[in-house]
């Protein structure tokens, strides 16, 4: 028993709130997390500053045809032009906006659904839990992508945001389940019992006792959801299930493929959007690894010697 005590002092529970400075410190000192953050922030900046980085023509937006078709990268068109004579650089820069906002938007909806369903089910227990768990498990085993493909087949002209929404509605189960099991653990912990004995009402227990303890889990689930949405939105757009007129990385790839970018060796229409998706995905994954390592010190590499 004493031993447990010792282990616990060794490994303080990591939660954003309690350790903000320490957590940040851990985060800042984690090379993976920092590399990920750096890449991500670069993209966020690109997205935010898109109109300044790649000013749009007065009319027609990033899809406006401004050059000759399939021009290789040069001084004027840094990433070359598409078969339609559109500026790939502009499309990629403005696509960053779309992809990131869809990713973070839908990711946020997902995590909110996860929190609502997961915590309700974990905290309430009983019949509510049974039913919600069933729902979660069902959504878990239903194959996600085919379901989304089928649903988007029914939606009228799904733009990136619509796709994001469809993804949000169908993909919350995994996170909800993780949060639920964590809630179950925390709900049975002594400090929750202590709060009840102190006379705290349920809503306060959920919001002020349970939720803050799951911040790192919530954040990593959220990031996972964002990655998932970005990748899946790109996939669906690529398959032509989205709106080909939108400006997003997936759409760029759709057009590249339609114009036989590889056969015509117009690699510049194909590589940048793909790399952007991969980089953002990779950066978020890195951040998640970082969070994992911070909340579970065992995973850290190069500990000690």
């Amino acid at each position, binding site marked *: 028993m004493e031993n447990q005590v010792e282990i616990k002092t060794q490994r303080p529970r990591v939660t954003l709130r309690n350790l903000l400075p320490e957590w940040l410190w851990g985060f800042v000192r984690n090379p993976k997390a920092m590399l990920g953050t750096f890449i991500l922030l670069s993209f966020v900046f690109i997205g935010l500053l898109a109109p300044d980085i790649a000013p749009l023509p007065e009319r027609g937006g990033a899809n406006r045809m401004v050059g000759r078709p399939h021009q290789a990268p040069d001084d004027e068109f840094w990433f070359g032009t598409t078969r339609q004579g559109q500026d790939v650089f502009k499309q990629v820069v403005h696509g960053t906006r779309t992809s990131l906002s869809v990713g973070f938007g839908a990711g946020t909806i997902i995590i909110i659904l996860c929190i609502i369903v997961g915590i309700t089910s974990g905290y309430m227990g009983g019949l509510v839990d049974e039913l919600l768990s069933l729902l979660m498990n*069902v959504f878990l085993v239903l194959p996600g992508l085919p379901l989304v493909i089928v649903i988007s087949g029914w939606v009228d002209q799904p733009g990136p945001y619509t796709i994001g929404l469809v993804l949000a509605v169908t993909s919350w189960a995994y996170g909800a389940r993780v949060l639920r099991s964590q809630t179950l653990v925390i709900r049975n912990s002594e400090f929750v019992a202590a709060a009840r004995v102190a006379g705290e009402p349920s809503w306060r227990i959920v919001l002020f006792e349970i939720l803050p303890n799951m911040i790192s889990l919530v954040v990593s689930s959220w990031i996972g959801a964002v990655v998932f949405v970005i990748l899946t939105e790109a996939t669906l757009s690529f398959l032509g299930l989205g709106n080909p007129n939108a400006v997003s990385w997936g759409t760029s790839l759709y057009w590249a493929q339609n114009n036989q970018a590889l056969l015509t060796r117009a690699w510049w229409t*194909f590589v940048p959007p793909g790399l952007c998706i991969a980089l953002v995905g990779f950066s978020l994954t890195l951040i998640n690894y970082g969070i994992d390592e911070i909340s579970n010190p065992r995973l850290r590499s190069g500990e000690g010697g």
Partner: protein
Amino acid sequence: MRFLVRRFLFYLVAAYVAITLNFFLPRLMVGDPVQVMFSKFQGRMDPRAVESLKETFGFVDAPVHEQYFTYLKHLVKGDLGISLTNFPVPVSEVISGSLEWTLRLVGIATIFAFSIGMILGTIAAWRRGKFVDTLILPIASILAAFPYFWIAMLALYYLAHIQGWFPIGHGYNLRLKEDWGDRAYVSSVIEHGMLPMLTVVITALGGWMLGMRNNMINVLAEDYITLAQAKGLSDRRVMLVYAARNAILPSLTGFAMSLGFVIGGALIVEIVFAYPGMGFTLLNSVNGRDYPLMQGIFLMITLSVLAANFFADVIYVLLDPRAR
């Protein structure tokens, strides 16, 4: 055993939900799918002809619950309706051909990705900071961040088209007859499956590997590992029997749960590689607005995923006595 019975019951419920969802999806959509579906015949065909076609497809007005029971009744008989794009071929017949190819490709690729991921993850954790951990792991996780289709297209273009190492598309050499007794056919099936498989494996590997590595690291900190080492067992035995076997358990549940995603990803690869599986049948049905076929395919994929999940549960029970 009780665990398996419970899981089985759950899958029954999940299957039922999927079936019901499948029924209501088109009915929940905005607009009139039937109208949209038949609009392409309009103008090309006499309205009378369109009307009688509608009837043939079974789009008759009836209360929803009646439609639902008819639907269930038909399902029980294995009748998934009639494909629109392949009229009047039953959906079940359209699917049956491609299902086999998908199961083969996805099944084998997934098992490969999973096992290689498990092995590499084990090694990465066992020899932390060494080659696998510091080199292969980061590469695999970068690859995992790329969209499936992107890698697939590059592979197709470079390895198949430019280098000519692999055939471009299709499940076998179309000059041959489908005949599993024929050596040439079998080897062409293998040859054609390589590249799609490789893509699935490469993109899925990172996730499994990392998961396994982290589980391994947690397991390695357990007392029973220390005890096993103290017992003077060989490293191999400790690594495989004591550590890996325990570390694989959480991955196995994860594996079962993410099967739906995996299959989704593999479908995309099929599309890129002209592989004759469900993926491209599904895409076609979507592009052709072949609702009955879409529903049928979704149902089939779901049922396969459920079956695979159950299979994973069985393995879980075999590996973990606590679940028995």
